[in-house]
């Protein structure tokens, strides 16, 4: 039973992160390879607001960090990616790689490489909860699962019924036609970057609250990328399935084989997937040609 819970928690973490890859890809065909780093920034922003005494309550600290993360995402688009809009996708992807490297360096400079515990700073307790016999979860892991479910429900509803969600889908299909129909592409892309960074930051914060924070958190963001790709980069539902597949293989192999494999497994699956079915389980086949 414990193993199922572990898969569920890890799968939720990957799902919450990988939806960010999917949203930006779906809207602009750009692979945001700085997503892991932006997730890390979200976690460190929480560390900063947690250290700011004047905020009073933990909720205020989390709220402010969330708002800041959303702003960071929008700023990344406005200051950096906006120039790439409508240009070659490759240039944009290379830019995100450079951005990722830059963020890694900046994080160590600003917050040091040491291990931090934002939960202690915020006086948030994280008790173990026994859900079944011999199967325990930390409180924050449980919250993380709930937040993931809520996030996906909101995203599905937004993309299906929200006017701006529909505009995001339309822009992903045919940006020129969307623009000709009066849709401001910059607004759509900025929104996509905002939502993507926001959801990534939520994941980063919850991971940091659960198990502390140092710059290796970026590895989790990287491992969520195979999850998004296995599911199909333009499919939100695929991101969930991909995340479950990756987390299940990872947890099972750690348990029964060799813990050292954990970081390699997602990428082995990624390579296998690229060979067999590069557009992913739920992705659109033709979409891949455009990358």
């Amino acid at each position, binding site marked *: 039973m414990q193993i199922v819970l572990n898969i569920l928690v890890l799968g939720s973490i990957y799902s919450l992160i990988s939806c960010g890859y999917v949203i930006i890809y779906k809207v602009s065909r750009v692979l945001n390879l700085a997503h892991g780093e932006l997730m890390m920034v979200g976690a460190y922003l929480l560390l900063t607001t947690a250290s700011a005494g004047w905020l009073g309550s933990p909720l205020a600290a989390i709220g402010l960090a969330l708002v800041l993360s959303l702003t960071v995402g929008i700023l990344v688009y406005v200051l950096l990616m906006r120039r790439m809009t409508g240009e070659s996708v490759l240039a944009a992807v290379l830019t995100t790689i450079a951005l990722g490297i830059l963020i890694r360096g900046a994080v160590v400079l600003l917050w040091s490489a040491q291990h931090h515990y934002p939960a202690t700073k915020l006086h948030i307790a994280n008790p173990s909860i026994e859900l079944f016999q011999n199967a325990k979860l930390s409180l924050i892991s449980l919250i993380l699962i709930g937040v993931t479910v809520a996030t996906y429900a909101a995203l599905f509803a937004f993309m299906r019924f929200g006017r701006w969600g529909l505009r995001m889908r339309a822009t992903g299909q045919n940006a020129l036609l969307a623009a*000709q*129909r*009066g849709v401001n*592409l910059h607004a759509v892309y900025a929104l996509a970057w905002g939502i993507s960074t926001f959801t990534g930051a939520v994941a980063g914060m919850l991971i940091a609250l659960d198990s502390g924070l140092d710059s290796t958190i970026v590895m989790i963001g990287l491992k969520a990328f195979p999850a998004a790709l296995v599911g199909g980069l333009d499919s939100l539902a695929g991101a969930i399935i991909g995340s479950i597949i990756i987390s299940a293989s990872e947890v099972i192999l750690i348990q029964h084989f060799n813990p050292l494999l954990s970081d390699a497994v997602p990428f082995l699956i990624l390579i296998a997937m690229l060979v067999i079915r590069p557009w992913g389980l739920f992705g659109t086949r033709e979409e891949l040609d455009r990358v």
Partner: protein
Amino acid sequence: MMLKVQNLEVLYQRSILGVADISIDVPKGHIVAIIGANGAGKSTTLRAISGFIGLDDARVSNGSILFDGRRIENRFPHQIAHLGIALVPERDKVFPNLTVQENLEIVASRTGHAERRHLEASIYDSFPRLAALKAKLAGLLSGGERQMLAIGSAIMCSPTLLLIDELSLGLAPVIVDDIAERLMRIRDELRLTILLVEQSTAIALRMADYAYVFENGRVVLSGSTDELRNDSSIQDAYLGTSGGEQRNYRHVRNRAQGPAK
């Protein structure tokens, strides 16, 4: 003059000439047609008016486009849409993975909620076929239905000037007549001005008041459609209505002056 295009030159990829020197006038309330052979620059002209995005790798490199006295060349398409120009493109005219209703829904119109509802009602009134297909994915529509939806979503932008690239392309004559008739009705209702690109000279001459003939990115001839219809040398040389003989332009005068003011 509602739309005034002067000496328009468009370059693709900084070097490929899309159109060389186009001047056209579209007076308010009129229907003006552009005809010409494949590659003459008809679509390029309409797309220059409605705006390019970076991905097109195209720009207006010379000349000007004036809409209601304002220069609009090289602006973003959404800005131009907000000024009141809407395009029915030649290809990729609907969002295939959205339903008919959603295709209308995503339009960022320049008008308020009430006007939107009113426009939507007009569209479904004029094209009852669309009303029956509201929940269907646009990718599954027939060519004719797709064209109706494309016209509908352009009208959803609440334009004063409607640009239509190839109304009749790939459609059966009965369907074209039907769509044209409904288009004329909605045009009267909303007092639209129309700039129409057509492969089919017969349709262009029937619908429009005035027409321009394009050849290799230039205007080689223009006149009221009555004039063009009755001028047999023009019929032979440009409009290809008298059979498959070789085209010979030398004996035709260039009368590219623009419609009566």
